[in-house]
C-alpha cells in the first residue's frame, strides 16, 4: 500500500502547496490587483459558467471544429501513411520533409486559412486538420513500413485475394499503432482549433478565454482555461480507454 499511497500523498501535497502559494501571492501586493484571484473565486466562476449553461455552446463549437478537423486529418494521415509505408521509394522522398514540418508551429499557417476559408468554423477546422495530420501520418508510416511479412505469407498460402489480404490482414495488423497516432492526433487537433479561436473568432472555448482577457475579467478567464483543460483531459481519457480495449491487436 505504501508504494501507491506515498507518491500519491506527495502529488496531493504538491498541488495543495501550489494552491497555497497561489493564494499567498494573490493576497499580497506583489502583483497587480486581480491578477491572481483566489482559487475559490475561480472555482465559483467556473461553476457559474457550467451551471448557467454559458460554456456549452462554446464547448460544442470547439468540439465540432476539432472533430471535423480530426476526421480529415485521420483520413489523410492514414492514407498517406499507408502509401509511404508500403513504398520505400516514396517514403525516402517524402518522410524527411514531413518530419521537418511536424516540428514547426502550425498556427503560423492560420492567416492563410483565414484568408481562404474565412473567419468562422472552417479556418479552425483547417487548423485542427493540419495539426492532427502529423502524428497520425508519422505513426501510420512506421507501422505500415514494419508490417509483419509472415502474416502476408499466411494469407497467400490459404489463397486469400489481394483485396482480402489488404482488408483482413494488412489493415488489422497496423490498427493499433494507427490508433495510438490518433490518440496523439486528437489532442493536438483540439489545441489547434482552440489556438485559432484565441486569435480570430467569435465563438468557442478560445474565444471566451480571449474575451475574458480583453475585458479584464481575470477570474472568468482562469475559469474558462480550467474548464478547457478539463475538457481536453476528458477527451484524452476517452481515447486512452478506447485504446486500452484494442490491446488484442498487439
Amino acid at each position, binding site marked *: 500500500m505504501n508504494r501507491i499511497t506515498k507518491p500519491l500523498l506527495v502529488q496531493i501535497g504538491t498541488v495543495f502547496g501550489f494552491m497555497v502559494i497561489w493564494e499567498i501571492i494573490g493576497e499580497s501586493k506583489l502583483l497587480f490587483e486581480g491578477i491572481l484571484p483566489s482559487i475559490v473565486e475561480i472555482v465559483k466562476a467556473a461553476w457559474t459558467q457550467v451551471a448557467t449553461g454559458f460554456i456549452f455552446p462554446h464547448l460544442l463549437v470547439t468540439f465540432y471544429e476539432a472533430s471535423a478537423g480530426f476526421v480529415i486529418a485521420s483520413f489523410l494521415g492514414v492514407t498517406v501513411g499507408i502509401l509511404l509505408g508500403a513504398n520505400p521509394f516514396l517514403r525516402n522522398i517524402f518522410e524527411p520533409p514531413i518530419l521537418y514540418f511536424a516540428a514547426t508551429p502550425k498556427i503560423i499557417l492560420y492567416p492563410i486559412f483565414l484568408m481562404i476559408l474565412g473567419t468562422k468554423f472552417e479556418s479552425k477546422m483547417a487548423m485542427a486538420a493540419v495539426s492532427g495530420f502529423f502524428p497520425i501520418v508519422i505513426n501510420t508510416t512506421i507501422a505500415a513500413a514494419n508490417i509483419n511479412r*509472415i502474416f502476408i*505469407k499466411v494469407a497467400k498460402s*490459404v*489463397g486469400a485475394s489481394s483485396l482480402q489480404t489488404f482488408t*483482413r*490482414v494488412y489493415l488489422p*495488423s497496423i490498427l493499433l499503432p494507427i490508433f495510438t497516432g490518433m490518440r496523439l492526433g486528437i489532442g493536438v487537433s483540439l489545441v489547434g482549433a482552440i489556438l485559432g479561436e484565441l486569435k480570430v473568432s467569435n465563438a468557442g472555448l478560445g474565444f471566451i478565454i480571449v474575451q475574458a482577457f480583453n475585458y479584464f475579467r481575470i477570474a472568468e478567464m482562469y475559469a474558462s482555461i480550467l474548464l478547457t483543460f478539463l475538457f481536453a483531459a476528458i477527451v484524452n481519457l476517452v481515447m486512452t480507454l478506447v485504446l486500452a480495449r484494442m490491446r*488484442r491487436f*498487439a
Partner: protein
Amino acid sequence: MRSVAPILEIRNISKTYPGVAAVENGSLEVYSHEFVSIIGPSGCGKSTLLEIIAGLLPKTSGEVFIKGHAVNHTHSSIGIIFQQESIFPWRTTIENIEFGLQMQGVPKEERRRKADKMIELVGLHGFEHRYPGELSGGMKQRVAIARALVMEPEILLMDEPFGALDEQTRIILGEELLRIQQEIGQTILFVTHNINEAVQLSDRVVVMTARPGRIKATIDIDFERPRTSEIIASEKFGRLVGQIWLLLREESLKGFKLARQ
C-alpha cells in the same frame, strides 16, 4: 524408385539472388503419406526451398510438380506452417482457424463445424475464444497447424515449426503431429535442424549441403509406425543419428567457414 507416382516432385530447383546462390539444383520426390524431413546447416536454403514449393517465392529455374502437374503459385493441395509466430493477434483461436475457409467463402456454419473438428484434433478444446496473447508458444503453433489443416491440404510443409519451443514441448508436439498424420494421412515435408527430431518423426531424412544448398544424401528411417518416443532408446536410433551427423558435420563446418568470411 517406386512404381507409384510421387505426389510432390521438384526438379532442378535453383534460386539465386543478385550475387548469391541460395539453392542449386534441388531435386526430390515425395510420395503420398510419407513424412520426409529436410535437414541441413544454417543458411543452406531449406526455408527458401520450402517457400518455393509453397508458391510464396519465385524460383530462378526448375519445376515443381504436384500430382503430376507443373505448378508455379500457391496451390490448394499445399498447406504451410512457419517457424515464427504467425497467428493473427486480433482473432480468437477459432477465428484464426477459420481464416482460410473464410477467405474461400465457405459459409459460417460449415466453417464453424470444420474448425471445431480441428480444435479437437489438435487438442485445444476450451481455448476456442482465447486470443493469442493468452496462449503459450506451443498452443500458438497448434493453432497454426489447425489453421493449415482445416483447409484439408494433401501436402503439409512445415518450416522448423517447433524451433522456437522448449525441448519438452517439442517432443510432445512431435508425437501429436504423428498422431494427426495417422488420423488424416497427409504427406508431410518437414524442415528441421534437430537430428533427433528428424529421425524420430520421419520415413526419410534428406540432408542438404551448405550454401548453395544441394541435396547431399537421403537416409531411410525404417522404424515401424505407429511410433512412440521409446525408439530413442534403441541402438538403431543412435546409429541413424550418428550417420546423419557425419554427413551434416562436414556441411556445418563449411557453413561456419562461409560465415566467417
